[in-house]
């Protein structure tokens, strides 16, 4: 078979195959299948947006309306005007959440990249065993050990402190796992060359490894963000003082207590709060999604 014949015969396969360059009529069937599903997945998200801007008469309209007709910011002003039962303004919860999330992301990136660097590029006896233990911990279901965790946090005098929001989130087995797999992709020669040039361990970690694993760091940042920003359990279990609780916790009080979501005034406020909870997740993911995808290609378990 001549070369030309070969390519003409198989160019068709290339067009139909994985990761095509452009549109092809054969793709229509996929859109046909995807669209209903995508709409199903999207409806609740649209609902969060639409609901948050509804004025009271639309929130309780009969028959109920899905889309907002006369959007208003009233729910948001209500939300911020409302003081919680103990007299703490919502802005305080929001401030706590923002600070806790930023500190946790920063600390967890440092802690897990350092560990991943050691597990991937350093040589030591327990290396394989430690990575295996971390892989088993991927299967760890936090809720199963809520009680012992509670006892330990009590014993360590971490109850009612700012630290209890941050420390438990730092050991993220999925994060260490993804980072280690990603650093494995950096050739050993790069590290060896730096060693010959006299770079110290810390120097190699800081100036070579960290800049090369930016996509993986972005992924860890997103995962930590989602876990921390959305976490209401820590405030519920370990914090008594109102001024140390988070926005996610405040939202639970709106949605679970009878004075919250079920009351007429509460529903609009809860809708606005849901949007404020959801939006940062979405924005950060959109900004960093290409990094996430390049990390995920290293994500396999062997």
């Amino acid at each position, binding site marked *: 078979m001549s070369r030309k014949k070969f390519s003409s015969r198989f160019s068709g396969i290339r067009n139909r195959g*994985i990761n095509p360059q452009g549109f092809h009529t054969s793709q229509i069937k996929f859109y046909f*299948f*995807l669209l209903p599903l995508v709409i199903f*997945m999207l409806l609740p998200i649209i609902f969060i947006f639409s609901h948050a801007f509804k004025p009271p008469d639309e929130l309780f309209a009969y028959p109920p309306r899905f889309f907002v007709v006369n959007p208003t910011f009233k729910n948001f002003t209500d939300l911020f005007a409302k003081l919680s039962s103990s007299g703490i303004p919502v802005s305080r919860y929001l401030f706590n959440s923002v600070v806790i999330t930023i500190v946790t992301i920063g600390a967890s990136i440092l802690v897990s990249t350092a560990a991943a660097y050691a597990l991937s590029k350093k040589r030591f006896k327990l290396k394989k065993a430690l990575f295996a233990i971390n892989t088993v911990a991927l299967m760890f*279901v936090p809720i199963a050990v809520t009680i012992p965790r509670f006892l330990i946090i009590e014993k*360590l005098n971490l109850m009612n402190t700012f630290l209890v929001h941050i*420390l438990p989130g*730092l050991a993220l087995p999925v994060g260490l796992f993804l980072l280690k797999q990603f650093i494995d992709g950096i050739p050993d020669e790069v590290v060896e060359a730096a060693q010959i040039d006299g770079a110290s361990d810390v120097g190699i970690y800081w100036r070579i490894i960290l800049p090369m694993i930016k996509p993986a760091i972005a992924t860890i940042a997103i995962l930590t963000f989602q876990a921390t920003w959305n976490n209401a359990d820590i405030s519920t279990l370990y914090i008594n003082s109102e001024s140390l609780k988070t926005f996610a916790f405040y939202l639970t009080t709106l949605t679970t207590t009878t004075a919250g979501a079920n009351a007429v005034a509460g529903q609009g406020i809860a809708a606005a709060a849901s949007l404020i909870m959801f939006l940062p997740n979405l924005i950060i993911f959109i900004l960093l999604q290409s990094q996430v995808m390049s990390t995920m290609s290293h994500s*396999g378990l062997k």
Partner: protein
Amino acid sequence: MTAKTSEQTILLQQKSSWDWPFGKALKKWVEKESGAYAFLSMYALMFIIFIVVPVLVAFFLSFTFFDTIQFPKFNGLRNYIVLLTQDEIFMRYVLPNTIKFAVIVGPGGYILSFLLAWILAQLPKAPRTVLALILYSPSMTSGVAMAVVWKTLFSGDQNGYLNSILLGMSVIQEPIQWLQSPQYLMTIMIIVTLWSSMGVGFLAMLAGILEINPELYEAGSLDGISNRFQEIIHITIPSMKPQMLFGAVMSIVATFQAGAIGVTLSGGNPTPQYAGQLIVNHIEDFGFLRYEMGYAAAVSVALLLMVLLFSRLANRLFGSED
């Protein structure tokens, strides 16, 4: 002068190694391995405090009677025996519910995320990115934010969206208490969990499919692979086994973690007539509502064992042989 100094050093070295017989080995270890442990130390510390120790404590507590006030009393295997023989709620509702939930949501969500990842990989980059983002976005919503949305959609009065639609089409004559009636709660829990199941595992599978070398498909077609289904079975899945396994483990963990959804939806623990009661709710019920921490710990250990068992099973199915 120089001779003297070197003599001194030799003396010193002899002295130090005589003082501490492991000196040399220790020094060698410090040179070779301590750096690695220094880098690991912070993570290891958090990992031990918040993951390893709690698991060990749970294991220990599961053999005791513990009401949070008195010191735990050793109880032997009593908790496990009670769990297996006397806990009627566990055997009649919690275990069947958990198995039903896990069997539908686990493999269902997993197959769905592979299928969607595969279809997305057949599309050009721009639409693929947008659609993947939409499919992933439910995983970003927290349980609490979701409760607002789903509770409104399934609200039990005629103002609920689903009731309103069905009333409008005259399918039903009067509003149904979706979230309070035992026959619907489980189905709704499954729908909501499937909806939010395109998580990290889905992204990993999508990336895995895109990474496969296109020449493999060309080689496959020369070897007589003629349709897409054969292509998936013989090329796609074998080439991305590591990602398939990662996705499977993540999906197993997510399935067992999603247990809180029933309580969030119905607004109370226990759920109406235990219809949506899962192991996670059972642990909370005994641990934090009845303060039988020892018993709750035994249930926790059972849950961890179940997750490990299923992950093992996934390993058998997708693990590579090396």
